[in-house]
């Protein structure tokens, strides 16, 4: 399959996703039809999730049709929504006003412009260096010292997670990989499919045979069985997708394993933040899933590591 054109591969990939979603939709409807009245809540949530998956897959599909300009624009909007959820739930004070204006209206768009023009040397350090130094200066100029370090850290963290990390997904388009020219969109597809299928498979394995909680303090739903089954099966899926990547089968398997482990750990970290704030979801935008950050917490942690590993070893 690796000799097919990237266009044909992308079409095949989306047909595959459509087929999986179709099966999931049918299974979900049958389960809902047969479910006893008391057991409906889980099934309804499952069906809401599947419906949202159709929407999200369609959105990514549209971005892919527009190709190089479409994908950065999509992830710019995703970052904006994620940052909005993050800052909303981590209260700041009046003195942070200018730091927040800069974060939303300067740092966020500049980061995506830098990714768009493929200026690696700048987009890799812009937020960790320049935003890191500039924003606390703006916050200090607000003249309010109450909880200053905590507030400065919140804004910086929000930018790192929602903007810096997520921007590493479209940044994959900037990689020059010998023998893999004009096909980097498929690398994004690989990352997104592996991460999201890992989330889904961990959920499925957890529901089917989850017994022992892996981190009871952080998450009431993550189990050892879900973790091992989900990560193993999603990594295998990643290996089987080697033909859309520049990697060999084992290369793709290893990459998928790293992606899945980072994604899992990211989910734990993000749920620690949610627990601290006493909330279950980051937002309400995606029916059945919660907010944008609930869907992307694992992407946030996986994307930069995947980007840099690919860059060091293949580009």
């Amino acid at each position, binding site marked *: 399959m690796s000799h097919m054109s990237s266009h044909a591969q992308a079409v095949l990939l989306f047909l595959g996703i459509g087929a999986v979603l179709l099966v999931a939709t049918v299974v979900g409807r049958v389960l809902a039809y047969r479910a006893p009245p008391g057991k409906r809540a889980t099934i309804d949530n499952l069906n809401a999730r599947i419906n949202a998956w159709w929407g999200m897959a369609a959105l990514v599909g549209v971005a892919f049709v527009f190709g190089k300009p479409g994908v950065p624009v999509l992830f710019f909007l995703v970052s*904006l929504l994620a940052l*909005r959820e993050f*800052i909303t739930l981590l209260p*700041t004070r*009046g003195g942070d006003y200018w730091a927040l*204006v800069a974060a*939303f209206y300067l740092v966020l768009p500049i980061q995506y412009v830098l990714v768009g023009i493929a200026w690696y040397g700048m987009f890799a350090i812009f937020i960790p260096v320049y935003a890191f130094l500039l924003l606390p200066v703006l916050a200090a100029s607000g003249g309010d010292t109450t909880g200053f370090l905590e507030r400065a850290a919140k804004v910086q963290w929000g930018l790192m997670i929602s903007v810096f990390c997520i921007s590493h997904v479209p940044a994959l388009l900037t990689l020059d990989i010998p023998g893999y020219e004009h096909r980097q969109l498929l690398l994004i597809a690989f990352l997104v499919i592996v991460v999201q299928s890992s989330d889904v498979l961990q959920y499925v394995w957890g529901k089917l045979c989850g017994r022992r909680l892996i981190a009871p303090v952080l998450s009431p739903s993550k189990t050892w069985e879900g973790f091992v089954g989900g990560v193993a099966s999603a990594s295998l899926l990643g290996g089987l997708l080697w033909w859309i990547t520049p990697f060999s089968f084992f290369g793709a398997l290893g990459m998928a394993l790293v992606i899945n482990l980072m994604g899992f750990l990211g989910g734990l970290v993000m749920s620690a933040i949610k627990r601290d704030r006493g909330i279950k979801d980051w*937002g309400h935008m995606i029916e059945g899933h919660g907010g944008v950050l609930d869907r992307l917490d694992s992407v946030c942690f996986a994307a930069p590591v995947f980007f840099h590993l690919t860059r060091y070893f293949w580009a």
Partner: protein
Amino acid sequence: MLEPLVARSLTGFIRLLTGSRVLWREKLVPGRRVYYGNHSSHGDFVLIWSALPPALRAQARPVAAAEYWRRGTLRRYLIQRVFKGVLVERDVAQRTEDPIATMAAAIEAGNALILFPEGTRNPGEGVLPFKSGLYHLAARCAGLELVPVWLENLNRVMPKGRLIPLPLLCTARFGAPLGLEEGEGKQQFLERARGALLALAPEGA
């Protein structure tokens, strides 16, 4: 002719900016009513206005401070033509008409009002003590329904005195209607109305 378009754009903008989520305690039909909320920004009445379903929105008019909104052509245009605000004069010493009479007249004419009984934008947390206008209005208009609306986070979107709004998520929670009860005193009533509003706030606010 242009006004509905301006109103639409403004409400569309604020809804897009704040992802405004609206939570209802119960379903309401058009009627003699005052929506009263916590006040922290000029976006407050726009958010309540845009949160209302079309049938309720058609009869809703914000109550606004005349001395602020009559200053400047743009403000006058927005409040008079676009939002059809009911302008009241806050300054007792200088005013020429009675605010209660103005608001009561608007209600008798079939409108619902959007009112912020704290009387001014509150830069801090919580809710300031209510001005007595809400009580006098309820005493004057028999059977008037008062619906508390808790606005969450809008003070962070448009802080007092700032020009650039921040994109943060906001929620409008509509509570159950209440009314002035037989023989209820002014202080007692105002405390009860304020309590009903505060009860809608999530914990820690």
